[in-house]
């Protein structure tokens, strides 16, 4: 274990503030993420965790602050740029493409890498003229690896809307993985799962992190999971950062205990 090398800072968030009308979702938040680590964000409901991911992702534009990714600093980015740079994410409230099958959902994650244009796609054919078919097969192979990895082979062609919640979460993860991201943002990937499934999911996250060296930012409410698998933890409360450090440090932080963990942990 623990043989993995944590690298330099890959993502640096500095002094981010975000508010909606009167609601201050984030005030002056700074933290960083190092290459290859699993970074957890925890905090009570409404603390601003999801909003934080949305800022990194370009879904929300923070009023203040900057985000540095691999040395490039952005005031705010648009989602497309973020995706192109290699940041992928999953969503807290499932945001799958409900009408599409599992394969298609995951294939959308490959879209950025597909080069053939509209015409060659229209004229795609089994005879290999134009190259669209070949490209499609190439990406399909990649996606099949993900499907194998996530153990959802049996549901390949099921419309995702019909899958039970837990499997949908996996597909969501699969879609993000299909982007071959450098940084993976996970928003409560294990909500609504039982222990067994959480174990599976943890394993996926760890494997991704180990095998592909993907940096993971994870929001999760299950302290067991967070404490077990993350390397460092940021704690937010009412939009403010109240703790940052290794799981052990955080666990013993007075502020964190009173605001979030409660005495039972």
């Amino acid at each position: 274990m623990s043989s993995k090398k944590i690298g330099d800072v890959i993502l640096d968030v500095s002094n981010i503030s975000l508010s909606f009308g009167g609601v201050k979702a984030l005030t002056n938040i700074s933290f960083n993420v190092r290459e290859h680590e699993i970074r957890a964000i925890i905090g009570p409901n409404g603390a601003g965790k999801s909003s934080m991911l949305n800022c990194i992702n370009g879904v929300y534009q923070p009023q203040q602050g900057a985000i540095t990714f691999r040395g490039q600093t952005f005031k705010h980015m648009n989602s497309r740029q973020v995706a192109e740079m290699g940041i992928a994410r999953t969503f807290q409230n499932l945001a799958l493409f409900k009408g599409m099958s599992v394969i298609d959902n995951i294939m959308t994650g490959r879209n950025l890498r597909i080069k053939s244009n509209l015409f060659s796609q229209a004229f795609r054919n089994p005879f290999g003229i134009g190259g669209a078919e070949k490209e499609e097969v190439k990406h399909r192979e990649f996606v099949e690896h993900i499907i194998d990895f996530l153990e959802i082979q049996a549901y390949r062609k099921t419309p995702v809307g019909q899958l039970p919640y837990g499997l949908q979460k996996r597909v969501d993860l699969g879609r993000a993985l299909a982007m071959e991201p450098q940084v993976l943002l996970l928003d409560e990937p294990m909500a609504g799962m039982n222990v067994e499934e959480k174990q599976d999911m943890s394993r996926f996250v760890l494997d991704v992190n180990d095998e592909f060296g993907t940096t993971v930012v994870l929001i999760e409410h299950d302290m067991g999971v967070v404490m077990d698998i993350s390397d460092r933890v940021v704690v937010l409360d009412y939009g403010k950062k109240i703790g940052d450090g290794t799981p052990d440090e955080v666990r013993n932080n007075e502020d964190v205990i009173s605001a979030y963990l409660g005495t039972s942990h």
Partner: protein
Amino acid sequence: MFYRENGQFKTSYSADQQIFPIAQDRWAILGLIAIAAIGVPLLADEYLFRAIFIPFLILALAAVGVNILVGFCGQISLGSGAFMAVGAYMAYNTFVRIDGMPLIVALLSGGFFATLVGIFFGIPSLRVKGLYLAVATLAAQFFCDWAFSRINWFTNNSTSGSVAVSGLEVFGLPIQTPVQKYLFCLSFLVVFALLAKNLVRSAIGREWMAIRDMDVAASVIGIRPMYAKLSAFAVSSFIVGVAGGLWAFVHLGSWEPAAFSIDRSFQLLFMVIIGGMGSIMGSLFGAAFIVVLPIFLNQFMPWAGSLVGLEISTAAVSHTEFMIFGALIVWFLIVEPHGLAKLWSIGKQKLRLWPFPH
């Protein structure tokens, strides 16, 4: 018992990605095309061709186009009639203004101009969504209605505003008789349906569906809403425009803007919804339903009436036709809100389970 994919193993992804992965389906569809291309011309009479088959083929083509926009990309449009009109009038202008213009090129150029107009009227979709967009697309409808009846250039300065074409031919073959027209339209439909199917099962199709299902998530994985929406408008209005050209050139021969009125837009939307949003096959089902049903009712009722010794007046037939048509639409929606295509696939699924359900 016989309708199974059992024993059909796919050895490559390419095989798995075929349009019809099940062998029985492939044969069925080939058989269907063969019947359509060879059998029907031998059997059907002129009335069937002119009043049913040709309109069906053309409107099915248009419905395929509308389905790309509405069904696949989720942008409800009530402007399809307008794009048909653009296709028709621009094909007409290309055809009559340039000497020796081949018919197919004229039709495609109609499609091209429809694409431009489609993209233009698609721009609001970047801001406006859902029903607001639907109503906003009516702007295209009314604007085009107006432009083609007010601006004389489009009608080659015809005093009445009605235009006509004649002497259609392709590669030296005349498109005159019903059978010729039918085959001409059939080939358009087959080719375009295939191209459309290819698009929707490729990357661009996934982009459209992603935008339809969850646009924020789509943009997070790097899909540009602008490109996806406008390309859907472009492809859709191209196909719709070509269908408009066919409708005008092949079916009507002479037309005025009213041929592409708002009713046409609604009709196309009906086809897509009844047929099944997000299904190319569904567009054909929908078109068949909407084209054939009223005509059937219209002829069936007097006949049924005469069986029981009732003479039903034309007006009563017509009103009853409205009522039954409306009731059937509602009934189908209740039975299967996702359209005939879904009903079809459930049927197939049941067949696959048959005779041992569950």
